[in-house]
């Protein structure tokens, strides 16, 4: 991995750490609460006599236990989902082509980018019907991640990213549109070139659109772009519905 690519991953890692910190904070606090409740229950039971007021206390303590354990279940689900998304999107040695629902990959990607998008960008899903597509899902998810991350970074302040999917003839089509700054026409032809960028290191570099294009083409697909400066850009990925390779 080049030095340039690292910054994008670092950005994602920082976001992911923050996303995990929230459920982790709840679990940590709850574990402490459970220990305290157990200590109190042991105290009450120590003299082997339980009176009326102690029964009231026990009821309250049991209720607290129920509450924190329910929250732990939610928190563990959140972390499990994040970890599953990492697995879906980072599979460096992916060698097998699999038949997958593209929507699942897009959702995993959105979950991983949650921290980058949350509270700033509205994500609109206009999902159509697409049959399962035979592809290298982890590589493809990295392409989606790059396109969505680019879209997010093209938007200064608040905005909208629309993800449209459909099948058209023999292709599955995924479009990612943003309400960002757009790409100047003189740059539009060069964005898929190696080494071309208008980004500063602060915003983080992705895989690069050239590598995205290579990944898509290796799977028999195409990537196209339309953009209007000041209105936004749309990247369209078309993938063959028939088996490739």
């Amino acid at each position, binding site marked *: 991995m080049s030095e340039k690519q690292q910054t994008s991953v670092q950005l994602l890692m920082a976001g992911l750490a*923050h996303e995990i*910190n*929230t*459920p*982790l*904070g*709840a679990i*940590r*606090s*709850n574990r*402490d*609460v459970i220990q*305290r*409740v157990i200590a109190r229950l042991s105290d009450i039971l120590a003299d082997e006599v339980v009176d009326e007021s102690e029964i009231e206390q026990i009821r309250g*303590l049991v209720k*607290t236990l129920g*509450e*924190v354990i329910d*929250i732990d279940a*939610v*928190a563990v689900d*959140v972390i499990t989902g994040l970890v599953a998304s990492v697995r879906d999107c980072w599979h460096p040695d992916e060698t097998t082509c699999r038949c997958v629902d593209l929507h699942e990959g897009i959702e995993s990607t959105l979950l991983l980018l949650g921290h980058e998008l*949350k*509270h700033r960008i509205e994500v609109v899903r206009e999902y159509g019907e697409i049959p399962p597509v035979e592809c290298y899902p982890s590589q493809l998810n990295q392409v989606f991640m790059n396109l969505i991350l680019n879209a997010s970074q093209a938007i200064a302040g608040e905005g909208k990213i629309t993800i449209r999917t459909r099948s058209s003839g023999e292709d599955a089509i995924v479009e990612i549109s943003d309400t960002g700054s757009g790409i100047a026409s003189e740059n539009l032809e060069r964005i898929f070139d190696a080494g071309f960028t208008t980004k500063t290191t602060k915003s983080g570099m992705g895989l690069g659109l050239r590598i995205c294009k290579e990944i898509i083409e290796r799977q028999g697909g195409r990537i196209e772009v339309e953009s209007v400066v000041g209105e936004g850009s749309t990247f369209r990925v078309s993938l063959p519905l028939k088996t490739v390779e």
Partner: protein
Amino acid sequence: MSDRVATILIVDDEEMVTTALRSFLQLETSYRVLTFTSPAQALQSVDNEPVDVVIADFMMPELDGIAFLKAMREKRPEASRILLTGYADKENAIRAINEAGLYYYLEKPWDNDHLQVVVRNGVERAELFRQLDAKVSELESAHDDLAGFRKRLIRAFV
């Protein structure tokens, strides 16, 4: 110190955080604990309620934690304001201290014993603030009484 029960208001868009904090505070303290996942609703709620300590998440929809605490400062200046954040971000910490008159900056994941001490001190601080406010009002009304007395005195003898 008065015998009134202190109120702790907690705002975080993640219910797992508000519930975890509430469960702990209700187990270990006798404070009244109010929790909200919407900063706007939390702000509305204090129109008719006294508040001693406000704990707010940094990243929230509608209003970020600093803007929320700033608005809270306008409405309930006596409440001690605590920012709870997943970021160890110096820039935002300084912004919060300056703009929202922050009392304390807590990081996620937090330690319950530490949180309890911070909240207890926050409650005491709010109570002192209230007492000071009452004394200032007393002084002001005493000053007004004296001024009135002085006027009457001048009118009677001059």
